């Protein structure tokens, strides 16, 4: 059983505090994705779990053991690096078998396990090549092969797909998903691609500046973001935020408005509000629809991007602020058209300043 718990984990490089106290519980067999903007400490956190970085303070527990001071090999983890880190002078076969060679396994054992891994990753035909004769996707497969061949209980991935092109990224993403189901191992996956996060994760951990912003299932985070940062980070195009003024407070029903927005009553899930105070109203572009009349929001179309399945328009509101709306199919709104937009109050999010 390889559950993982991080308790008050901290990491500093001298005066630079990179991880500022992180608590996460990861169940056995769970697929957890760390997301966050560049430099937020995702890789550092993952490397602390792997044992490649020292833990400044806090407690790291893998499969019921405190492993703070254990070297990587005694933590029972395998890791796949963004840069693949496959050995250039070894064939694919030798690369995949590396962990077994280190452990001193016999040739028969190695051949059998490598063949098994190659079958799972569909790379039997590549086994005798050298890394220089492989494409990026194939190299990443080799790196994954090297990780799975030892059958570790925990897999760590640090942006494994970010060096691949879009189509390959999607293929590999699906394969990693399948691999997780097939192996049933605990996996921690670092990415800044929210599509990877949403599609792969059982649980997403959103990080910012070395602190956890929210932990939850993809849909929880999408529909009930704990703060404006999480709300803005997930979803594409990202959420619109309107600076609004609180007009009335009735329990957790808050009425807000601004010069471009008709007063609207929103059920606030977080934060505290007082009349006359400022707040931010978040509306996902997908939840905006063109209104018959003036609508709750109105402005002029500034830009149209037609993607086929949806049309993304940028509207300049009457108070001069931009707003993005993603409309169904290929609705046509020439630039400069006056447009009114509406949304359902229950689908909007209110965040206090």
């Amino acid at each position, binding site marked *: 059983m390889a559950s993982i718990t991080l308790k008050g984990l901290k990491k500093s490089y001298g005066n630079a505090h990179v991880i500022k106290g992180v608590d996460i519980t990861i169940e056995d067999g769970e697929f957890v994705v760390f997301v966050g903007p560049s430099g937020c400490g995702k890789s550092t956190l993952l490397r602390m779990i792997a044992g490649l970085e020292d833990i400044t303070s806090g407690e790291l527990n893998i499969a019921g053991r405190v492993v703070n001071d254990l070297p*990587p*090999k005694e933590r029972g983890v*395998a*890791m796949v*690096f963004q840069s693949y*880190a496959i050995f*250039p002078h070894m064939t694919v076969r030798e690369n995949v078998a590396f962990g077994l060679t*280190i*452990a001193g396994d016999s040739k028969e054992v190695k051949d059998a396990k490598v063949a098994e891994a190659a079958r799972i990753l569909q790379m039997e035909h590549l086994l005798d090549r050298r890394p220089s004769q492989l494409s990026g996707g194939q190299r990443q497969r080799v790196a994954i092969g090297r990780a799975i061949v030892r059958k570790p209980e925990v897999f760590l991935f640090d942006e494994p797909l970010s060096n691949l092109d879009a189509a390959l990224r999607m293929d590999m993403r699906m394969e990693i998903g399948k691999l997780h189901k097939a192996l049933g191992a605990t996996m921690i996956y670092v990415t800044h691609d929210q599509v990877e996060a949403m599609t792969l994760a059982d649980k997403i951990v959103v990080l910012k500046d070395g602190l956890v912003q929210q932990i939850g299932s993809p849909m929880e985070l999408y529909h009930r973001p704990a703060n404006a940062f999480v709300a803005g980070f997930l979803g594409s195009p990202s959420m619109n935020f309107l600076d609004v003024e609180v007009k009335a407070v009735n329990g957790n029903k808050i009425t807000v408005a601004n010069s471009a927005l008709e007063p609207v009553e929103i059920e606030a899930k977080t934060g505290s509000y007082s009349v006359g105070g400022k707040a931010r109203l978040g509306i996902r572009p997908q939840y905006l629809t063109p209104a018959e009349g003036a609508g709750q929001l109105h402005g002029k179309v500034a830009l149209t991007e037609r993607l086929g399945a949806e049309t993304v328009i940028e509207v300049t509101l009457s108070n001069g602020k931009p707003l993005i709306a993603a409309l169904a199919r290929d609705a046509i709104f020439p630039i400069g058209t006056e447009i009114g937009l509406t949304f359902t109050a229950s689908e909007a999010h209110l965040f206090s300043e």
Partner: protein
Amino acid sequence: MASKFLKSNRTGWLMAGPAAALIGCFVILPFVFAIILSFTNQRLVSPNAAEFTGLANYRQLLGMATLTLDPVKDEAGVVKLAADGTPEYPAVRSFTRNNPDHPDLAGMREWFSFDHGDSRTFILARDVVFMQALLNTFIFVLVVAPLQGGLALGLALLINQRLRGINLFRAIYFMPVVVSIVVVSLLWRFIYDGQSGLLNNLLGAISFGAMPKVDWLGNPNTALGAIILMSVWQAVGFHMVIWLSGLQTISPTLYEAGAIEGASKWQTFRYITWPGLRNTAVLVLIVITMQAFALFAQIDVMTGGGPLDSTQTIVFQAVERGYGKQDISGGSTISVILFVIVLSISMIQRWLTRERT
């Protein structure tokens, strides 16, 4: 009409010109001269015109022969014993001087001999000193190349760590390289001094006077070893830096991958570091070999080839003959022989360490 290659690269030729001219003047031209001179009897300063002598110089330097002799027996067929109880053999001199039966041995001298069965075989050389120089140089190369290369790699591994003040160590190890070899040799002459040398005093002190004083450079048994030790010490820092640059081209992620897979220190070296140093190793090996074959300054300053020719080397002989004895054609011949030796060894090394696919 000039070819397109020459015309369209005018700027390139102009820029390469000075360097090319200098190399031509001071490397290629002397080299061509050396080859030409080695086939003549040119002297450094001589009123007589040089004559073409074919391979005579080479024959003179490399000429060797063997001579197997039976012990001298008296009329009864009993082996005559010399004063020290060993069998007596006819004098080699009687075969190599004015002996009409052995014109091919004329002028040769005994280099060394060995016994087998009842007889003794003498290895004769036309130029025993040059043979000794060849042998010494090969010993020097064979000891220095692995020793210096290995030590330099060890040092490079040691200083390739992120430690406070590691640059100080890098500087210290590199320092002897910056000091001229002539100065280093002079200093080490004091260290090796037979009476009050640092080495003798040090050995005396740690053995509480039990260690007898040795004249390290004056004793034929220790002179070459002493020079080897000093030479290794002097240039090890240079090769350390080359190894270090090789070490730093190895991606740190490879080491991290190794750590995750559980590689021990030795396995990390064996599977990650050493394969990553392949090209560096070839370079270091070839450079050390070439430098070792060129051994000269240490000999010139410290021993002058002695005692008893125990530290003669190829280059020292080339200089000694070409300038000391004014036999420029003989010196040139030695240079050409050295060139052929170094070239073949480098090619063999390259072939042995080639990338196998």
